[in-house]
């Protein structure tokens, strides 16, 4: 059970379960956001991938953080499709590798692992802040989590700060002009819509704050 200071593999698995539930609840909304500026499949794809990831974790029974990352990454890459598959897959793979072969992580290690995951998304997708992508939610979230820990915050404080920053970052994508992904084909017409990838990224962090340091 979570004790609020360390993150175990069971906590990480609970995070993915919670994320899958939340994606289920928001799938229609994600698809709706995606039909405005993309190709109307983000909710469907994420739902399919998260369900498969939950099954994969049950089958793999990972013993350490690396095993967790690997089990989920391969499943997400092979079931989500689109751009989100390789991007979220790279996130979990790098998170796992950075988390290492320990059965649990402390607050600093957890934030470092999340940060490595976000860096992997950035290098795979070659996007920059302000391009109207997942990174516009994730990068401010990492900065907020690091800031919170530096200020002496607990893991729960850091994850809450990260979630709040991600939500703010997600809303900040609305006036942005898309420079990556299918939305960039719309040019000026991409302005005024919230990015669906930034939205699912906010849900990922919200799920983390509900499970990893509960």
């Amino acid at each position: 059970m979570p004790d609020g200071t360390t993150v175990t593999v069971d906590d990480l698995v609970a995070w993915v379960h919670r994320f899958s539930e939340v994606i289920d609840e928001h799938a229609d909304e994600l698809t709706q956001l995606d039909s405005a500026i993309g190709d109307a499949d983000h909710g469907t794809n994420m739902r399919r991938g998260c369900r498969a990831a939950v099954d994969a974790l049950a089958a793999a029974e990972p013993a350490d953080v690396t095993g967790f990352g690997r089990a989920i990454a391969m499943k997400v890459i092979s079931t989500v499709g689109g751009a989100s598959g390789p991007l979220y897959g790279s996130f979990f793979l790098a998170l796992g590798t950075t988390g290492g072969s320990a059965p649990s992580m402390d607050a600093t290690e957890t934030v470092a692992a999340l940060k490595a995951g976000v860096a992997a998304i950035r290098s795979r997708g070659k996007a920059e802040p302000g391009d109207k992508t997942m990174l516009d939610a994730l990068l401010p979230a990492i900065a907020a989590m690091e800031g919170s820990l530096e200020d002496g915050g607990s893991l729960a404080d850091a994850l809450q700060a990260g979630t709040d920053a991600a939500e703010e970052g997600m809303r900040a994508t609305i006036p942005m002009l898309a420079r990556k992904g299918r939305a960039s084909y719309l040019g000026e017409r991409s302005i005024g819509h919230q990015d669906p990838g930034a939205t699912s990224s906010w849900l990922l962090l919200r799920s983390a704050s509900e499970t990893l340091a509960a």
Partner: protein
Amino acid sequence: MKKLINATDDVVVEALQGMEHAHPSLKVVYDPKYVVRADAPVAGKVGIVSGGGSGHEPMHGGFVGMGMLDAACPGEVFTSPTPDQMLDATKAVDGGAGVLHIVKNYTGDVLNFEMAAELAAADGIDVEAVVIDDDVAVQDSSFTAGRRGVGATVLAEKICGAAAEAGRDLAAVKELCERVNANGRSMGMALTSCTVPAAGKPTFELSDDEMEIGIGIHGEPGRERRPVASAAEVAKMLVEPILADLPYAEGEKALVFVNSMGGTPLIELYIIYNEVAKILAEHGVEIARNLIGPYITSLEMQGCSVTMLKLDDEMTELWDATVNTPALRWGV
């Protein structure tokens, strides 16, 4: 939503099962999904693999066969396939001469094919990739995902397939693919939206008196919405941006490809072709070859696209070479 389907989750698999029954020259693998020539791998021949979201039929599965693709990886409707599919397809068609991936320029397709190429290289297979980006509706710039891959993909798959069949090596087939891409330009338009089965409702709304110019093949809105116009005016809106982007000198030859987005009948495509021919005659462009029909579609969307490929003798000869696939077949 009215569609001839059984269940939205089964659309891709059941369509593949139908293809498998209809075309004994193809083999369909279901886990992970890909369509492959039944005689693959062809020893000593460069293998050609493409893939992309489903919903563009006959592309890509319908282009698998002698003289065109060795394998095609179908994703969910309008969703990129995944690296495990591409890796297995690449292994299945590697006849020892390497494999070319022909990739349409969409972020998901490019990312997934990149991962597959890394995995295949780790398995010791020589893999090259060419990204097709021929859609002039999109401004090319380092600040966007770049131009989309559309109609020129069909032409590249045919021409490169013929070159591979003729025994050219991987470097030569890749160079040829880049040349087709560099000389191909497309522009599309829609009269209606389309409905992704899993979404259940039209991707965008277009009223009865409107059309979308510069539409992509995924129902993603184009760049400009205007009142519906005549075929002559629409042909002009499609051809002029192409000629502005890649001018033709008097007497240069083109392959003109008039494509249905899925819901537009052949009678209207011929009317468009007639208008395109008139415009090109005014510009002194000779239409040396043509292709007219539904080859790269967007489900049931009404609309069309025009692709022009500036032909040289080599491309023309390879275009004319024998091809035997479910969707393109001549010289057999």
